[in-house]
C-alpha cells in the first residue's frame, strides 16, 4: 500500500475542506472498497480523510419520507423496521449483497461510491480507461462474462455492482451533498451516476471534495409492494449476473403504475422507463411481464462471453414481477 497522510475529521465542513484542498485526497468511511483497492495499488491516495466520526449516522423519519445519514451502515439500513415495511425492495437488495461483516462496515454513501468488480480495472497491468484514462479496455475483447450489456461504449463495459443502488433507482431517491465551498445540493438519484461515454473514469456527478451527507427517500406508497431478485453463480456472497428491482401499484386486474430497474447488466444502476410504460394499464400477467422484459433489454449489446445475460435478465425481470404481483401490498 502506498504511503498516505491520515486525517480524522468530525464535521462535514472540515472534511470537505480537507479533501477539496488536496487533489490526491479521498474520504474514508467503511473502507470495504477503498482499503481493498489500496492494497492492490488501484487506488493510491496521498491523503485519507476519515469521516467515520461525522454525525451522519441517523435514519430520520418524517411526513416527507425517510432521510438516511451517509454513514448509516448497510446492515442498519437493511434491518430498519421502517425501511423493511415501506421499501422492502431496499432491504432485500442490501441483504442480497456481500456478507453481514461487510454490511456492518459499508456505509450508505460508500455503497453509492463503490467501484466496479471488472478484473481489468482491478489489475494495474491491464489496459483500463476507467483506471488510467486513454489506456484502452482489455475487457471488450477479453474475458467479459460478468460485464455489462446495457449502457456500454467503446471505452468501457464495466458493470456497476451495487444491489442497493438498483433498488434506490426505483425509489425516487435524492442524494444530498456538501461542497468544499460550503454550498449544498440535492441530486436526483438517477442523475447521480454517469454513463461511461468516452470518460469512464468519471463515475458520478460529484466534484472533487463534494461529500454525500444524506440519501432521502420520499414517501412512496407503491414501494410497499416491491421486491428485489438477484441471480448469481452461487446462492450467497456473490455479485449479480442479473437482478431486478420492481414495484407495482395494482388496481384489481390492472397495473396502475410500475417501477423497474435492472442490476448486474448495466454500467450504472439501470432504471427501465420503457418497461414501466409497457406495464402501465396492462393486466399483471406473464404476457405483460415478458413484453416489459423485451422492452427493457431492447438496447442490449452483448459481447463474446455475456450474451446469456440478455435472456437471463429478461427471465429475472419476469420472475421478479410475478413474485411482486402475488404479494400483498
Amino acid at each position: 500500500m502506498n504511503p498516505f497522510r491520515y486525517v480524522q475529521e468530525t464535521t462535514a465542513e472540515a472534511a470537505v475542506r480537507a479533501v477539496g484542498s488536496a487533489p490526491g485526497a479521498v474520504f474514508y468511511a467503511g473502507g470495504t472498497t477503498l482499503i481493498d483497492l489500496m492494497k492492490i495499488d488501484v487506488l493510491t491516495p496521498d491523503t485519507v480523510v476519515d469521516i467515520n466520526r461525522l454525525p451522519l449516522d441517523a435514519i430520520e423519519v418524517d411526513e416527507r419520507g425517510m432521510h438516511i445519514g451517509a454513514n448509516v451502515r448497510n446492515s442498519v439500513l437493511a434491518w430498519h423496521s421502517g425501511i423493511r415495511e415501506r421499501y422492502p425492495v431496499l432491504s432485500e437488495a442490501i441483504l442480497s449483497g456481500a456478507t453481514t461483516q461487510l454490511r456492518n462496515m459499508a456505509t450508505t454513501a460508500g455503497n453509492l461510491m463503490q467501484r466496479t468488480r471488472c478484473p481489468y480495472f482491478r489489475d494495474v497491468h491491464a489496459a483500463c480507461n476507467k483506471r488510467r484514462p486513454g489506456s484502452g479496455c482489455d475487457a471488450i475483447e477479453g474475458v467479459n462474462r460478468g460485464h455489462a450489456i446495457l449502457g456500454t461504449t467503446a471505452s468501457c463495459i464495466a458493470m456497476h455492482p451495487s444491489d442497493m443502488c438498483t433498488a434506490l433507482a426505483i425509489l425516487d431517491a435524492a442524494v444530498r451533498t456538501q461542497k468544499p465551498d460550503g454550498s449544498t445540493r440535492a441530486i436526483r438519484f438517477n442523475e447521480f451516476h454517469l454513463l461511461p461515454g468516452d470518460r469512464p473514469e468519471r463515475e458520478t456527478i460529484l466534484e472533487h471534495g463534494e461529500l454525500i451527507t444524506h440519501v432521502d427517500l420520499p414517501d412512496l406508497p407503491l414501494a410497499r409492494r416491491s421486491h428485489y431478485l438477484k441471480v448469481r453463480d452461487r446462492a450467497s456472497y456473490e455479485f449479480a449476473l442479473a437482478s431486478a428491482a420492481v414495484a407495482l401499484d395494482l388496481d384489481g386486474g390492472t397495473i396502475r403504475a410500475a417501477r423497474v430497474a435492472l442490476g448486474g447488466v448495466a454500467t450504472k444502476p439501470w432504471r427501465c422507463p420503457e418497461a414501466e410504460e409497457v406495464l402501465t394499464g396492462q393486466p399483471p400477467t406473464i404476457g405483460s411481464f415478458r413484453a416489459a422484459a423485451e422492452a427493457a433489454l431492447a438496447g442490449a449489446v452483448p459481447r463474446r462471453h455475456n450474451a446469456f445475460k440478455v435472456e437471463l435478465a429478461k427471465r429475472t425481470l419476469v420472475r421478479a414481477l410475478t413474485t411482486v404481483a402475488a404479494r400483498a401490498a
Partner: protein
Amino acid sequence: MDDTDRSDYTPVEGPIGAGSIQTGSANPSPPAATESASVTLRVNGTMHTLATLDPRTTLLDVLREHLGLTGSKKGCDHGQCGACTVHVNGQRVLACLSLAIAHQRDEITTIEGLIDEDRLHPMQAAFIEHDAFQCGYCTPGQIMSAISLLQEAARGVPSHATPDVTAPPSLDRLSDEEIRERMSGNICRCGAYPNILAAIRQVQRTHTRGATP
C-alpha cells in the same frame, strides 16, 4: 506490512487519548511519506498504546503483529474469507479491511477475549464438541461470526434467506438455510460446514431456553 517490529508497543492503563491524531485542516501540507502516529486501542478490555504506528497498518496486522493476538487469522486479506472476523462495538466486522488508526475509542473483541476466567465461551466449547473444524485456520472467525449471528437473530433481524423481510424468524425458529446464509461470510476450505451448523444449533438451543447470546 508484516515487517513492522513490536518495539513501539507499550500497554497502558487509563482513558483513550485521540489527541495525537492529526486534524488535517490545521496542517494542509502534503506528506512526502507516511507520518507515523501514536495510536491507542482497547482490545479485550485492555488499553494498548502503539507509540509510532504507520497509518497504513490494518487492525488485523496490529492485533497479530503488534499485540501478539494471533487468534484472528489472515486468509485472503481482502474481505472475502472471514478468517479475520472480530467484534467492534459488538458488531462482527473484518479486521483486514479496517485501518487500526480509525478504531481509537472503539471496543474491540477478538477470539482471545471470549474466555471467561479459564472457561471457554459456549460457542468455543460447542465447536470442540461437534468437531466443527479440520485444520482450524478459519475457526476463530467462524466462532466470532457465529456468536454475532445468534445475537442478531435474538434481535429479530432478517437475512437474504428470510422470505418476508417484515417477518423475520425468532431465534428459536432459525432454519438451517437461515444459519447457512448468515454464516456465508466465513469460508471453510476443509468443508466442516455440517459440524459448524451443528455447533451453532447447540448454542442456539441453550439460548432459546433462556440464556442471552
